[in-house]
């Protein structure tokens, strides 16, 4: 056992570091995290420039086939790049979904000509992609979506609404899951397309989160016309195409929400209670140990997953626990810090609040972490069914034509 790179990994890591050292600023340890409220035009410009630089240096599309401008690398290279990049302050949050999920779906289903047109600009950060799956009435129940695509000659006419679309307001293109046949059971009547987000009939409205951030959007389609040539996979085969997309969700390697446990420790070492650092007080120690043990467990589980990747194996189920654990932990970390601040903990103004208000901000962001990208309840169901092999929930909608399934308010 060791935590060292193999020789090949070490060489790759050195290359990554050299690139990052030359082009980015290192993060300062212990500094309070900057609030992330969303990406404005200026941030988008910076993100695009950074992506172009990565593409030029050969760090974009690490796992893509070389044919489409990728590096033909394995997941371990991607992990190494992400680990190292996390140590620098570079723009994030714009290209992950497009390059990690949308374009791989394109590569699996689009024509050669289409790929020649779209992969390059995506890789170089010139065009942004988003993934249009969730709907107001189908969050956890993704296959319950209602956005209708109706064939009209060589085109499809699309009407409906998507929600929780990350980065739709920044995007040029998107992959869109629609219902083309409501008379068959719900998983069977779906079809996937890719669309131009600037086409008439597409309207994007940002969603304001309780934390003040706006990472997500609603997207409305009104008689959007999409050529049949922009269909991905067969008509009615959209669920299978969507599973390809979702399976490309990359291994989370360093995305713990901040303030994380190390931010908490830094706070507890500096904040004093009756002249004694908070970390010296017994109840704080009791809670901190609990939080630390879970943080360390998630980190070590990640190391085990990376070990598997490094050996060319598929990570085991331990990789699935991070999201679930982190979502609860974030709220606990924030509450512990605020509780120590007492009434003063209510104050969220970054100028006045300790640690620039990051714990207050985190308290407001934490509920979203238990929901976005799969609720904790759904994640538990997935562990129970896929890892432990327990039976699925009783289904009342499985073999019923979609149009006959019971509905409540949308």
């Amino acid at each position, binding site marked *: 056992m060791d935590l060292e790179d193999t020789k090949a990994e070490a060489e790759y890591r050195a290359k990554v570091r050299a690139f990052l050292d030359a082009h980015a600023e290192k993060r300062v340890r212990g500094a309070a995290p900057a609030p992330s409220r969303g990406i404005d035009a200026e941030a988008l410009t910076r993100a695009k420039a950074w992506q172009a630089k990565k593409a030029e240096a050969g760090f974009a599309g690490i796992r893509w086939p070389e044919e489409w401008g990728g590096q033909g690398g394995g997941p371990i290279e991607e992990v190494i790049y992400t680990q190292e990049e996390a140590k620098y302050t570079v723009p994030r949050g714009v290209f992950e979904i497009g390059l990690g999920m949308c374009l791989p779906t394109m590569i699996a289903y689009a024509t050669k000509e289409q790929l020649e047109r779209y992969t390059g600009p995506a890789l170089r950060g010139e065009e942004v992609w988003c993934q249009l799956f*969730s709907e107001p009435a189908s969050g956890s129940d993704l296959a319950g979506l209602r956005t209708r695509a109706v064939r009209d000659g060589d085109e499809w006419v699309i009407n409906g609404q998507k929600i929780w679309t990350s980065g739709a307001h920044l995007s040029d293109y998107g992959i869109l899951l629609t219902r083309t046949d409501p008379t068959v059971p719900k998983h069977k009547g779906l079809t996937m397309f890719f669309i131009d987000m600037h086409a008439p009939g597409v309207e994007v409205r940002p969603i304001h989160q309780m934390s003040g951030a706006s990472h997500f959007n609603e997207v409305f389609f009104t008689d959007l016309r999409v050529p049949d040539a922009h269909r991905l996979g067969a008509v009615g085969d959209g669920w299978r195409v969507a599973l390809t997309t979702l399976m490309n969700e990359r291994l989370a390697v360093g995305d713990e929400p901040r303030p994380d446990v190390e931010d908490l420790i830094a706070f507890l070492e500096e904040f004093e209670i009756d002249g004694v650092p908070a970390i010296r007080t017994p109840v704080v120690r009791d809670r901190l140990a609990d939080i630390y043990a879970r943080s360390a467990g998630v980190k070590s589980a990640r190391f085990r997953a990376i070990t598997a990747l490094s050996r060319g194996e598929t990570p085991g189920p331990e990789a699935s626990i991070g999201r679930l654990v982190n979502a609860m932990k974030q709220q606990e970390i924030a509450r512990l810090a605020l*509780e120590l601040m007492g009434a003063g903990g209510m104050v969220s103004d970054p100028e006045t609040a300790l640690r620039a208000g990051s714990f207050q901000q985190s308290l407001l962001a934490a509920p979203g972490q238990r929901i976005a990208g799969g609720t904790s309840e759904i994640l538990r169901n997935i562990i129970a069914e896929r890892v432990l092999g327990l039976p699925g929930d009783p289904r009342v909608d499985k073999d019923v034509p979609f149009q006959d399934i019971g509905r409540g308010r949308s």
Partner: protein
Amino acid sequence: MNLEFSAESLEIRDQGRRFLAGQTCLPKVRAALDGGGIDNAALWQGIVAQGWTGAAIPEEYGGHGIGYEALCVIAEELGRSLAPVPFASTAFLAAEALMLAGSEEQKEAWLPKLASGEATGTFALSEGPGAIAPGAVKARFADGRLSGTKWPVPDGDTADIAIVAARDADGRIVQVLVDLGAEGVTRGTLDTLDPSRPQARLDFDGAPAQVLQSNEDPWETVLSLLDRAAILTAFEEVGGAQACLDMATAYAKERMAFGRPIGSNQAIKHKLADVFVALELARSNAYMGALGLTSGERDLTLAAATARVSSIQAFTLAASENIQTHGGIGFTWEADPQLYYRRAGALALTNGTLGFWKDRLVTALERRDAA
């Protein structure tokens, strides 16, 4: 055995609930959150007209002398509705502080105004982040003048008077009464988790102040005040938690997924059952607190601390699981769950935190067993 409110109190509660339901409190809370300030003049007038501001103030000081049962049910309704008014700071803190330790003259000067809603008041204890403790009180009082900085002070931006914890020239804790309109007082508003309950920064630079008389150790008076406020805050939290549970339950019944209401999933059912249990524990403990307040028991610390420990836990849980039950829509700015989540987060740090009340609870147990 009669651990239930009187018919009169229940009538006040029901009437209050109807009144507040007609007051569009949530839109006002949302407006405050959107930075539009708090438009509560009419609401406050209504509250005064309901007689709430004077409910627990004796008639000799211009109040209605209805008593603490009424104040408890009012607190619950304010918590349920999130009404953005300076009621808690005025009635649970300023008026109580004056009644506990004010001189006859001080009571006569201010209680009638607080009772009539003509003036509002607050209690200024904190001086920035940290636990409630005598050592954290640094504001100085000497020769009738107060200097120092207090923050956050609930409703300190609009209050007419504040009772302020300070130290006298000998370093002893004193409570002093300050007219916030006087010279030497500078106010600033703070951004907080819950802008519908404003918190202020008060800078005192030789502001005129009068000592409150107190028969006991002034720090003990501060603690007594907190004990009494704890019970009322517990009712606020119980009301808020009940609103969250009601909202989550209603949503779980109508929101469909996989062809059936999400409320038919045990993941949701058991979550809400756990919220119900936490809420019933909190409500039951709050009732014992109400009994303590109304029976005028001298030492109600144990009841107060027990009520507050449960109510902080219940509202925190209920507000969080209400969002979770709502799923994506639950953490949007436009939906209501965040308003309760913010209030729960702020109340959990108001008038003593969970840690403060847990410790005080055990102190009360030790005192009980030593007796």
